[in-house]
């Protein structure tokens, strides 16, 4: 039977999934407003966009953190040094999140991209993250053993999120704010590393899951996993500048970033070289619901890495920067990679804490396909819209409005596929939220029901395995 201490992790996961549902809903509304500006005009686009972005960012953080809180005592045999710190972290996150949502609905801004809320709300975020970070390091160092690579990745993600989050507020100093070139460069430098830091949390979770599902310790130990980790770390630190290639900063910054970005070709080459081996592993593990999400994330890593490499070449970035190709890159990574891995984590965690019934499992499997096909359509229409926009503005030197009229049909298709995304996500998230609530209620109040549900789910899983 699980310990009561596991509850915080499940609550984080539940809130994460609720955030994702909200984020996807606002994303859908925003996409429709993009092509039909009168749609739901009482909540204008300039409010909808930050609502969408903030809730999706919350999904990533809540679920990654929830997983770490759960896996430490349950799978790594590491007790959390402070249970109070965990609870405070949760309370601060929730209160800050609610305050941010209220600010957005009321049209109270003052920040900038990602953190549009009034700057004082950054303070509780920093405090809550400090609580988490201190607790992580104190707990992790309390046990003497060789850290697997995912613990390094989590530690890096925690440390660098704090660093880059604070860096993204340097604009409050006149030294940065009063020079726009410096300001925008530092802003996007911090954002580049910031997304790198949450990727560390998410990819770390992915490697943890692969190790556990495949029961193969070599995935997280040894020379190769660490070499790949350090390569990712170098890109986190120095590979951000494709966001700002054309900001008039010193040219060496962009040359350095260009060179660093190209080191990702090594990761790309490794994926291609290991393709056959990966295919065998995928086929073996396909029946496992968690693993299915991991497989999807691997395919999206391949697609997004190819796109990232292309747009890191300045000669290509010239045409893609500021177009919908950047949106495709962001959405492809957030949904295709991060969300798939985090869904795998949700399923893995909830199967451990409670049980997913056969009916719920069917919904999730259908949602999985709708989500992936919709994402493919979504991604493709954004690439087309961005390519046309880049060509018409940079090559034909057309005006913005003329170009937007030309790409509107593709944007309508993009908005339509966004509805598909919302449906697919809902089919996965709603059953999982029910399982999570059951886990919290049943596990801690009526454990005998859990035993019965789990037994029926195990029979179903066995039948599925035999069919496959």
């Amino acid at each position, binding site marked *: 039977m699980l310990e009561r201490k596991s509850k915080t992790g499940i609550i984080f996961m539940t809130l994460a999934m609720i955030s994702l549902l909200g984020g996807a809903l606002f994303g859908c509304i925003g996409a429709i407003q*993009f092509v039909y*500006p009168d749609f739901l005009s009482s909540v*204008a*686009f*300039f409010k909808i*966009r*930050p609502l969408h972005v903030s809730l999706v960012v919350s999904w990533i953080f809540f679920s990654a953190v929830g997983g770490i809180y759960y896996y430490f005592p349950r799978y790594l045999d590491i007790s959390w040094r402070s249970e109070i710190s965990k609870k405070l972290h949760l309370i601060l996150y929730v209160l800050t999140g609610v305050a941010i949502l209220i600010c957005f609905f009321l*049209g109270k*801004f*003052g*920040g*900038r*991209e990602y953190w*549009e809320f009034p700057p004082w709300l950054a303070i509780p975020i920093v405090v809550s993250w400090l609580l988490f970070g201190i607790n992580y390091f104190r707990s992790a160092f309390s046990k003497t053993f*060789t850290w697997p690579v995912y613990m*390094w990745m989590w530690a890096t993600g925690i440390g660098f999120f704090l660093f880059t989050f604070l*860096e993204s507020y*340097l604009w409050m100093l006149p030294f940065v*704010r009063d*020079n*726009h*070139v*410096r300001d*925008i*460069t*530092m802003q*996007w*430098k911090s954002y580049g590393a910031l997304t790198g830091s949450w990727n560390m949390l998410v990819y770390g979770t992915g490697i943890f899951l692969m190790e556990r599902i495949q029961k193969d310790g070599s995935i997280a130990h*040894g*020379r190769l996993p*660490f070499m790949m980790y*350090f390569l990712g770390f170098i890109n986190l*630190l*120095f590979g951000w500048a494709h966001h*700002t290639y*054309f*900001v*008039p*900063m*010193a040219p*060496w*910054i*962009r*040359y350095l970033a*260009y060179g660093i970005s190209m080191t990702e070709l090594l990761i790309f080459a490794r994926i291609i070289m290991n393709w056959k081996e990966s295919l065998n592993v995928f086929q073996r593990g396909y029946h496992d619901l968690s693993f299915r999400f991991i497989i999807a994330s691997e395919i999206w890593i391949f697609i997004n890495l190819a796109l990232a490499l292309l747009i890191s*070449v*300045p*000669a*290509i*970035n*010239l045409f893609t*920067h*500021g177009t*919908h190709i950047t*949106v495709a890159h962001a959405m492809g990574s957030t949904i295709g990679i991060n969300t798939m891995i985090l869904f795998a984590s949700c399923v893995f965690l909830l199967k451990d804490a409670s049980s997913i019934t056969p009916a719920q499992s069917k919904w999730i499997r259908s949602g999985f396909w709708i989500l992936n096909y919709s994402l493919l359509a979504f991604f493709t229409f954004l690439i087309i819209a961005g390519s046309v926009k880049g060509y018409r*503005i*940079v090559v034909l*030197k057309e005006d*913005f*409005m003329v170009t937007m009229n030309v790409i509107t049909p593709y944007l309508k298709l993009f908005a339509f596929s966004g509805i598909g995304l919302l449906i697919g996500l809902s089919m996965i998230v709603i059953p999982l939220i029910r399982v999570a609530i059951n886990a919290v209620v049943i596990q801690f109040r009526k454990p005998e029901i859990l035993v019965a549900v789990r037994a029926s789910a195990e029979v179903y899983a066995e039948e599925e395995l035999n069919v496959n």
Partner: protein
Amino acid sequence: MPITVKRSVFFSLFLTFLVYTWVVSTAGTEVDEGKSFYNVEAAAGKLLFQKYNCGSCHQLYGLGGYMGPDLTNALSDKSGKEAYIRAILKTGTAKMPDFKLTDKEINELVAFLNYIDKTGASPVLDYSINYDGTVDVGKKK
């Protein structure tokens, strides 16, 4: 891989990053061609740009939202004379809400856009592409 090697690599990279951050935030971004246009009004306009979350729809240097045009060179763009920009700020458009801006706020936003306009060009329309994939940017579009 021994733990000492992992720690050494990690901390070497981290120290390099700190030095790099310092250089980027000082010498790497020292040049600001619009500096002489940055005054009290422009500084206030910059904060208004954030207060009204203009970045959710507009871009500066291609960074920001996608609903409206990039405003980096809005004041020197052939379709974006100052009077035109002021009129849009005053009344809004079919896609842009009327934020009920005061004349003072409009002046400050225009001063900010004027400053941004002098800092560089976006989108880049005057360029030459080199064989190694790098791009040389012209002075102004």
